[in-house]
Structure formats: C-alpha cells, structure tokens
C-alpha cells in the first residue's frame, strides 16, 4: 500500500526521507563497488528496476476474488540482494508516483522505507533463515515473499498510526484501525504473492537451470559420483 501524496504531515515526510536516505546511499555504494568488480553488471540495476515496475503492474488473482498487484520486493531481494533493492526500489517508487500517480513525492521517503528497505531486508533475512533451518526452496521462497509483504504493510500502518494517533485510544488504537482496514486487501495479496513467487522460482528451476548457471545467477549443482 503506497501512502499518497501529501498525506503525511511535513515533519513525518521529512523524517522518513532522512531515515531512508542512508539505506539508498549505502545501496548505491555497494552497487558501485559491484560494478567496478564486474562491469557487465552496469546495466543490471536499470533493467531490474524496469522488471520490478512491470511485475508490480501485473494483475494478480487474489484469494478473495478481487485483483491486486504484487510488490515484487521479495523476489527482487532474493535475486539481487537487499542492498541493491534500496536504490532499485527508490527508482521504482519514484516512477510509480510519476507515471501512475501511485504514492507521491513528499511521501516518497516513507514509501521507500517500508517497501524498499524493510520489505527486502525482511525477505532476505527470512529466506536465509528458512534455508538454514533446512526448509525446502519452495517453502523458503513462499515465506520470504509473503512475510516481506506483510511486514511492509505493518510498517506502513505504523507510519500512518505514528503520524495520526487516535484522539481517544492513541497510537495503539490508530495502528489497529489502519492495520485492520488495509488487512482486507493486504493479507490476501501477501498469500497470492507468496504463491506466485514460488511458481516463478519453480518455473526458473525447471525450464532454465542452464541459462541461470551460464548467467552466473544460480550456483552450479554439486557433482556427485
């Protein structure tokens, strides 16, 4: 869920931009280092950003019957790493504001923080943890993509509740209100996106293992005697 233009008070808008900026700067630095070592990756981020943008414009059949749009943060974090997702996500969110009027320029910092920082880091951490606990690839990918979606939406609810505490119940009541209203769309979306990401990974592993290896994306399988 993108927070729309002008919705946050000015001090919150500035504060979230300041909070998101170091992550984007750090992402750019790590990307620059990667490009120096590996110059053929120079074009990768721009193309990856377009991929994330196009993916997020797909119409996904949601479990409740309505249609929703995936965020693509989980898949992106697993494919490109969470550090690279901060600048990629920043550009994608800027483009969504400029080309689709989803989100906004004053709320860009808050949206970057929830969708391009919290989401990818959560996805990557959950994916690594699940793999370490010997979960299968499908389960790990499902958990990473769907929990990243849920954490993104919880972050957005926290941002809204912090900016607008309830006059009666304060922060807690306001958080429950926002989280409750957006849960109607966001929980089905998280489940659908988790399923879609599993289907994507299965299709990649089934049809294109050789290409992925040649491109240096997936590690070569162990040779067993």
């Amino acid at each position, binding site marked *: *869920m993108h*927070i*729309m*233009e*002008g*919705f946050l008070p000015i001090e919150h808008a500035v504060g979230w931009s300041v909070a998101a900026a170091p992550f984007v700067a750090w992402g750019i630095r790590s990307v620059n280092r990667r490009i120096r070592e590996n*110059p*053929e990756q*120079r*074009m*990768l*981020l*721009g*193309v*990856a*950003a*377009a*991929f994330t*943008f*196009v*993916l997020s414009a*797909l119409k996904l*059949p949601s479990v409740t019957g309505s249609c929703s749009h995936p965020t693509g943060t989980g*898949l992106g974090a697993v*494919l490109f790493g969470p550090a690279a997702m901060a*600048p*990629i996500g920043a*550009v994608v969110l800027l*483009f969504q*504001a*400029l*080309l*689709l*009027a*989803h989100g*906004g*320029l*004053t709320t860009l910092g808050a949206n970057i923080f929830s969708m391009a920082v919290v989401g990818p880091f959560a996805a990557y951490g959950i994916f690594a943890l699940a793999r370490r606990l010997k979960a299968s690839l499908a389960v790990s990918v499902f958990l990473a993509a769907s929990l990243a979606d849920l954490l993104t939406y919880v972050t957005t609810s926290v941002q*809204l509740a912090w900016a*607008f505490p*309830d*006059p*009666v*119940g304060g922060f807690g*009541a306001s958080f*429950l*209100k*926002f989280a409750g*209203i957006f849960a109607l769309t966001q929980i089905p979306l998280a489940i659908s996106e988790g399923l*879609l990401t599993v*289907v*994507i*990974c*299965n*299709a*990649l592993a089934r*049809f*294109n293992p050789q*290409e992925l290896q040649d*491109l240096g994306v997936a590690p070569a399988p162990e040779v067993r005697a």
Partner: protein
Amino acid sequence: MLIEQSAYANRWRGVAPQAKGLFALGGVTAAFVAAATPAAGLGVAALLAAVTIGGARVSPLLYLRVAAPALFFLAISALSLAVSVDGGGLQATAAGTHQAAVVATRSLGALAALLFLVLTTPLSDLIALLRRLRTPEVLLDIMVLCYRTLFVFAAALQDMRAAQAARLGHLDRSRLLRSLGQMAAHLTLQVWQRSHALHLAALARNNDGPLRFLGSRHPHARRDAGLAGVAALALVLLAWSGR
C-alpha cells in the same frame, strides 16, 4: 499509461520543465500552508486542477481516471481517521473528524500539484530536470535504463500474454496463476539477457560512463521559469491569506 499520453500531448508540453517543477513545488507548499483550514485547502486543490485542465488542456475524464486510485486510498484512510474505536464500539469524535478533513484537503491539494507536474511533463524532461538538480549519476542511469526497458518489457509481456491466452492458459484461476508465474519467470531471465546485450551495445559504442542523451530545447526557459515563480508565489500567498 494514461499519464504518458497526457504528458506528451498537452498544450504545455514545450514549456521548460524547471518552470513546471517550480509551479508544482508552489502548489505543494500552498497545500501544506492552507492545511489548517479545510476550505482553503479545497480551494488550492480546485485551482490546481483548473490550471491543469483549463491551462494545459488535459481531458477532465483522463484526469479523474488518473486520480481515482489515490482518491480511493484517501477515502478509506480519511474514514479510518474520522472514527475512533472506543470500548468495542465505533464513534466519530469532533477531533477525529476535523483531523480527517484537514488531512483529506491537504492530500487533495498535494495530489493536484503532483498531477499538474506529471500530466504536463514527460518523464524524459523530468529526468533532465533531476540532472540539473545534481541527482547522483548512478540513480539517473538507473532511471534512464528503467524508462526505456519498461516499454520493452511491457511489449514482451503483452506478446507472452497473447500466446498464453491463445493456448487457454487463462482458463481458470489455478492455471492463470501458473501462467503468470511462467511469464514472470521468462521475464526474470530476460533481465540478465537484456542487460548483458545492453552492456555489449554500450561497449561497442565506447561507452563506459554515464548514459547521456540530447534533451529537448526550451528557448524561453528563463521567461517560463519567471512566470511560474510569480504564479507559485501568488498561489502560496493566496493560501496563506485564506487559512
């Protein structure tokens, strides 16, 4: 994309992007300045919408269709601001309703300012404007590549979708999900293939630095920026006096 259509076809397409950016900045500032009084905030939003539709000749229907998703978000968020949960029951408090009105009008004003900018200015002009504002070169490169590849991917997606539909890939929900997954998987692979091809193409042209293109020329940039600055200032003062 509806915004693209209007950005290239409106009457103010040739006006310098810095002028339109300045006016949009004035619009956002006015929306935040006027926020304390909902009526003044509504006035700012209406004025900005009138300038976009009347001045730049953006079709009102397209304007509404572009604004609809944001308005939907605004409606449910304002509703949840207006009511309070109190001991299991819902109630609308005076403080909550006032807050909802303030936030809704401020968002409407800021949204109208954003729409003015994006509906009159193509993205390539906005990227040129960001370059003048000293945005890091890495981010600009990502934007330029992203903007171009967006349409390449959209075309690839459309072809794949047509092929899948022709083979009954969208017959029921489970098959639709599987088709979508296969489509996204193929697109994922193209990320590396296309970026590799782009890299080779750049090397073949001796390019290993930032990607630069000729921008559009704006002979009256100074005059445009001056007029826009005066208009922006007037808007902010109007909002200030109206609150």
